[in-house]
């Protein structure tokens, strides 16, 4: 039996939740005070996900960097790999919010998109 200790992020209570797992299956969730904690804990131990935000190099723009994000969540264990692909990207101005910077980043099926406009100079 595997035990995982989590802090719930659902509200400022920050309940300390304990999840018990058997062969990757959730057996029990304890320590939460509401349904939000139960749901959060189950997601977090089976397939934790995060949105990654960073900046990418942009050439010929009125700013040296363009801020970017993964358009939706990606698996948490891919954060480092996603950062490397973002760091390798070089964009050219102009760029608009929502323009794709890296397509299907690290095979996640999620695009990295620009989060601000950079004008050409």
């Amino acid at each position, binding site marked *: 039996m595997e035990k995982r200790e989590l*802090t719930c992020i659902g*509200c400022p209570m920050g309940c300390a939740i304990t999840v018990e797992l058997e062969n990757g299956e959730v057996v029990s969730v304890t320590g939460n005070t509401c349904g939000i904690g139960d749901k959060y804990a189950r997601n977090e131990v089976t397939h934790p996900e*995060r949105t990654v935000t*960073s900046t990418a*190099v942009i050439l010929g723009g009125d700013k040296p960097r363009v*801020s970017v994000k993964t358009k939706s969540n990606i698996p948490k264990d891919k*954060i480092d790999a996603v950062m490397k692909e973002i760091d390798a990207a070089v964009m050219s101005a102009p760029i608009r*919010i929502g323009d794709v910077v890296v397509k299907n980043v690290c095979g996640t099926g999620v695009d990295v998109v620009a*989060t*601000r406009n950079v004008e050409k100079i």
Partner: protein
Amino acid sequence: MMNYDIVIVGGGPAGLAAAVAARNAGVDKILILERDKELGGILNQCIHNGFGLHTFKEELTGPEYAYRFIEKVLDAKIEYKLNTMVMDISEDRVVTAMSREDGMYQIKAGAVILAMGCRERPRGALNIPGFRPAGIFSAGTAQRLVNIEGYMPGREVVILGSGDIGLIMARRMTLEGAKVKVVAELMPYSGGLKRNIVQCLDDFGIPLKLSHTVVDIEGKEKVTAVTIAEVDGKGKPIPGTEERYTCDTLLLSCGLIPENELSRNAGVEMSPITSGPIVNESLETNIPGVFACGNVLHVHDLVDYVSEEADRAGQNAAKFVKGELSDAKSDIEIVATEGARYTVPSTINVDRMDDKLTVRFRVGAVYKDSFVSVYFDDERVMHNKKRIMAPGEMEQVILLKDKLKEKSGLKKITVKIENE
């Protein structure tokens, strides 16, 4: 001298939302004065997500949130001036500003909206002992360097203060390849959101040391090490608990202070608790026609509430310009006590208030299973149970005009926290 109906000082989230609201209320000549080279304020460097859940029902990054409002300002053809520093606001609403392009000039404003935001508490205000080498930054300065300019301030980092910007920068520097060794927090609780503690520290195994502070900074040219120690209940370092961390960077995330030099010079009455102007139900200061909103008024936890507050300031400034705002005779005082540190607004004139008035406040400590109580004079009229309240989050109560009118002769509304 130029003439404008409304002059807005600051083109961040508060200034933008106030401008849009004033235009929607039918005001023609509006001017936004912005110190930076672009509109959007601090949101431009807050590239992480989590903004706008209340306003847009989706999670945006800071620049995206800002652009939603910038677009409205552009569409409405509201005038704005960039790279412009406001030097003075007089009691009769003459705004003195200057820029490289236009030199120094004056504007006579029908109404002024203060939307200057806040700034970070610097090292000098923290009394940290030690040397004064390069490599000590406020968290927000580091954020600007990394996210806007594309520079890394350092490779080995210690962070003092667990405010949200510090937590966000712990993750950001880590993602960019730095080693964040520890976050020290003077208080026994974090000032940051739980979500940020989990996703910015726990995710990367960065330790958070509560009740700890920096007691020494080493380094002649550049920071070489920082020593932290545990503090007792009075915030005094406990000898023997010192831990030394070699590092090249110290980030400070130790609170925000509303930036009110202009307001003070203009004669605006200030609250010693919020360090922001004292305002009435219309978000108007003691100077008629001078309104305040956003972080210059009181430091907010969510930008959504800044936008909402600024919208009200914009509407009220519009009413003032059109002569629709009756005299600012405030008949009811709002008092914050027993756990509630302050309220915004501080006074109410029932005739001027909207049907509903949101009163925002913060608590001074962590409260579990406690009640937010509102008293009309000595009568308790509201008693809402809250599972948790923490200093890092804003609380609110909503007052109804009808209820206030029913209680004629009402002099004092008290907001307090009660155990039962």
